[in-house]
């Protein structure tokens, strides 16, 4: 079962409901793609699943553990790639990744491995502020998968990446990985056709409420575009 199970999730911001009664079920190894206009609650949902925000009502189970009570059980097994790269601009790529490696108790060798896979080994010792946005995004991806998480939460991961970089990054955040350790993914996307291609399950959010929840096969890009009207 594991994966992500959400039942009636609500989270308010003062009197405004950021999320209102959202429910979904995602099995281990599946990919959920979340669509919706800005302010619909996509980022809030992602952050709740990441244990960064507490649910105010409803039940949330991530990788078998109930939030917020057992959040500490899953913390090391989730990878988040948000809008912010979560990296220090004055430190180098290598220093940033090494810092995260220490926090997650990951061997230093893994840092080198990932630097090579995102093709940044030769620029790994320059402060991040001297790298382009695309490069910083690549380092951010490396950070997100550094500890080989079972659950990946991605907020528009392909933004800022040119096609070559997308090719580099896809294997890292893609669904196919080690078959012995299935990777569950939740992706927020604004691209109806591209996002749909990745999805097993599709969730559409509008004003914090779920407008649609279907298997990927039962939904067309036009229906998704409807959400944005």
């Amino acid at each position, binding site marked *: 079962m594991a994966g992500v199970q959400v039942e009636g999730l609500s989270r308010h911001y003062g009197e405004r409901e950021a999320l209102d009664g959202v429910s979904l079920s995602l099995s281990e190894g599946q990919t959920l793609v979340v669509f919706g206009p800005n302010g619909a609650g996509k980022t809030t949902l992602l*952050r709740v699943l*990441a*244990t*960064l*925000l*507490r649910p105010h009502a409803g039940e949330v189970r991530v990788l078998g553990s109930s939030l917020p009570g057992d959040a*500490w059980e899953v*913390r*090391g097994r*989730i990878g*988040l790639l*948000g809008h*912010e790269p*979560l*990296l*220090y*601009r*004055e*430190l180098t790529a290598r*220093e940033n990744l090494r*810092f*995260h490696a*220490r*926090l*997650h*108790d990951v061997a230093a060798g893994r840092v080198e491995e990932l630097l090579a896979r995102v093709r940044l080994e030769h620029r790994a010792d320059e*402060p991040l502020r001297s790298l382009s946005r695309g490069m910083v995004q690549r380092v951010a991806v490396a*950070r997100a998968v550094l500890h080989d998480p079972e659950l990946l939460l991605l907020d528009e991961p392909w933004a800022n990446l040119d096609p070559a970089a997308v090719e580099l990054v896809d294997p890292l955040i893609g669904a196919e990985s080690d078959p012995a350790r299935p990777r569950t993914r939740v992706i927020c996307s604004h691209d109806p056709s591209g996002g749909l291609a990745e999805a097993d399950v599709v969730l559409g959010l509008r004003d914090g409420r779920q407008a649609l929840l279907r298997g990927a096969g039962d939904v067309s890009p036009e229906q998704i575009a409807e959400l944005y009207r």
Partner: protein
Amino acid sequence: MRRTVGALLRKELLVELRTLESVPAMSLFAVTTFVVFHFALQRSSVDGDLAAGILWVTLLFAAILGINRLFVADADQGGFDAFLLAPVERTALLVAKALALLAYLVVLELVAVPAFALLLLGPPLGQAMPDLLGVLALGDLGVAAIGTLVAALAVRTRARDLLGPLLALPLLVPIVIGGARATSPLLALGHAGDPPGRWLLTLGLYDLVFGLIAYALFDFLLED
């Protein structure tokens, strides 16, 4: 826990070494303030109560500069998120930041105390130095604990540069009271005396209580 504190502290000092945002500013501020005091008080030499007061006030305001910058890099760039996602004890951040602030204060004093002795202090410092260092150390511990808590409180608000000092100063008054009272006899003309044990005890107790309070409350500031 120790490993996490180590990793955090290392990152902290690395960022500070790269940007040199806090320590040079604090030290320069202290020296400049001594010059200002010279002109404001129209004195070339101070001792006893006055000297203790000037020293502590200057160190206090320089510390405020450091407190203001303490969490800014994390709030603006690295993000607390990355730390919150890691399977580590959250209080490690408090300990690491407090140790970093303590380190900054020590470096500040390495510059400020000799500068003070050079520019304004009348009586020679030699004999009283070990005692002075002891008093300063006790004061630093309290400033580090309270400063870190206040910095964490202020950084994610809108008026972070204003709220930090406004919150910190009243909370640090007892440290100034204890510190200044304990330092006065050390800087007195003639035979420098010992710092009254009562004040050392007060300082120590205050440090302990607020250290514990900071430890207990810090987690609540980080979550969302």
